[in-house]
């Protein structure tokens, strides 16, 4: 059974709030370092940067529903999921800057964050491409008779390519413990869901695979996401896959450089409406309703998260660039079974 919100302690909720604030500040710092940082040595220079702002409650609530031994995998909007799973902000920021100390050694970039020690299996940048990987990870769990589950984040846009169909069907046939969590932000890159999807109520597709149709949960409310995902994970462990949605909204463009809100007045209006349900605003309202006198906590959280982000930036800026040895490392696994050097440069 899912843990009900009443059992979450004040301390836990404040910790989650702090983590959510950290994700937002991390994303805002990434944006700043991409566009506005005057010192070239401190900039994020990679072309792709997909910010999670607006999706924080989905990322944090869902990841908090996992046990330490559960698994999580996602697409390229992956910063917040890494932070929620407890990956150090400085190692993530170093990856943004392409530094040797980054989680992927500066070789993966923003879209390919992963951290094996916490079963964060990575961000993947081919839409839908990570879905069968989730099926495969869940297959290993079942094969070895482990009690764990796999949480696979995907965008609504990913529901329309072949990977979605094949991966969900295969996981269904094999009763694998996967929760397919659609972050439905109403748009796949720039195309609206109603223009791309015959059945925009995506959970209904569960019927086609004979799997559990999960809820369409309010993705701006971290507690609701947490409870729904926890219940779905329990179902997945016992009975097999669940398809569920978290309804949310992207406060930035598809990539940080997209100017969709500048170009379209109707979208600007929609954004304003969704901003009233900013996941941080919703979470703070809940805390204020439940507890009194949190001003000192908020002040501390503000200062601590600012410091964490600033420290992360300084760590990244002061970290070494990868060199030639890094460039040629890990193309292949070193192996006694291979004749000669497979790396011909």
């Amino acid at each position: 059974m899912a843990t009900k919100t009443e059992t979450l302690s004040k301390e836990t909720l404040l910790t989650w709030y702090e983590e959510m604030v950290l994700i937002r500040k991390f994303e805002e710092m990434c944006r700043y370092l991409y566009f506005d940082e005057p010192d070239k040595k401190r900039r994020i220079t990679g072309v792709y940067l997909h910010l999670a702002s607006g999706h924080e409650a989905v990322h944090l609530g869902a990841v908090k529903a996992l046990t330490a031994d559960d698994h999580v995998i996602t697409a390229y909007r992956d910063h917040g999921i890494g932070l929620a799973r407890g990956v150090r902000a400085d190692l993530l920021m170093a990856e943004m800057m392409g530094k040797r100390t980054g989680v992927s050694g500066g070789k993966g970039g923003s879209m390919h964050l992963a951290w094996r020690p916490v079963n964060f299996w990575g961000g993947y940048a081919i839409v839908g491409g990570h879905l069968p990987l989730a099926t495969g990870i869940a297959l290993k769990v079942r094969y070895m008779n482990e009690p764990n589950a796999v949480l696979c984040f995907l965008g609504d846009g990913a529901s329309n390519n072949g990977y979605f169909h094949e991966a969900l069907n295969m996981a269904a046939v094999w009763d694998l413990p996967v929760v397919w969590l659609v972050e439905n932000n109403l748009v796949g890159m720039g195309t609206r869901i109603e223009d791309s999807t015959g059945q925009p109520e995506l959970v209904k597709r569960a019927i086609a695979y004979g799997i559990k149709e999960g809820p369409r949960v309010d993705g701006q409310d971290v507690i609701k996401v947490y409870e729904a995902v926890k219940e779905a994970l329990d179902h997945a462990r016992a009975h097999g896959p669940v398809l569920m949605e978290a309804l949310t909204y992207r406060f930035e463009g598809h990539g940080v450089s997209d100017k969709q809100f500048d170009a379209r007045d109707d979208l600007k209006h929609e954004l304003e409406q969704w901003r009233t349900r900013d996941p941080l605003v919703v979470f703070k309202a809940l805390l204020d309703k439940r507890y009194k006198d949190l001003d000192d906590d908020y002040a501390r959280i503000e200062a601590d998260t600012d410091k964490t982000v600033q420290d992360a930036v300084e760590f990244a800026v002061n970290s070494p660039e990868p060199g030639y040895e890094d460039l040629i490392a890990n193309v292949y696994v070193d192996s006694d079974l291979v004749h000669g050097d497979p790396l011909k440069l």
Partner: protein
Amino acid sequence: MKNMSMRDALRAALHEEMLRDETVFVMGEEVGRWQGTHRVTRGLYDEFGARRVRDTPISEMAIAGAAVGAAMAGLRPVAELMTINFAFLSLDAMVNHAAKIHYMFNGQFKVPLVYRAATGWGNQATATHSHSPEPIFAHFPGMFLGVPSNAYDAKGMLKTAIRDDNPVLFTEVIALYPKPSPIPDEEYLIPIGQGDIKRPGTDVTIVTYGRGVEWSLDAAGILAKEGVEAEVVDVRWLRPLDLPLILSSFKKTNRCVVVEESLPMYSFGSEIAAQLQEAAFDYMDAPIKRVHAMDLPLPYARTIELMALPNAQKVVDAVREVL
């Protein structure tokens, strides 16, 4: 020592590795209850059951991708794609994920999987089912590619591919499945990336793999009657390529013909020719000739299908041109 067909030798390799390591399992279309489209997995379902011999839906993207996930998580999948013709559907999972994940996440994950696929033309299979596209898959660093030319090599190569921690695409020429070779009773492994001299010679080097080895050996027999001794180099692995072996032969013969079942543009032949002129230009006594399928889709009708394909006589003709 006993004679085994390549089909049986491959099955023996799978069987031995499944007995040896519980994390090795087989997945793919019709590999289980159907006993394998080409009967390579015959009997495995009955012996090991549905957990380790997993019939899949007709889902090439998911077969390739799920194998990646399972391998990252610690299993050793042997994922069969039935034929290489269907692996075009799997290309993204193979290229972007199987081959790159170890590098892209800087060594955090290994992907110890084998993709098996039948390959090659023949029997009027027609354009969509007559591919030998190995060079396309060998283009990408991060994934090895082996193509055995006989039953003995097939067994030793597949066992190594299963044990290695890198992803391997292993293609099996359909026409070679029934052909036998002597297989030792004791276990043996053939290292990844190690080529093999299938026939020693002094006058010309024929570089080839897979079905091309048979044509090249037949051609060498014909040429020997004319006093021409051809050396046949079977690279066995397109990636990594045993360039030192090719170079040592070429520096001796100073002449080279490249033989492949595949197409000529951006091909195995192109690659070998480029490598040799870069590394051994001063040893070159004649232009390098290439024998390959004609540069068109394969037709159905037997007569013109055969016209389009390489054979031993075409190899003989090419060798005569470089002497």
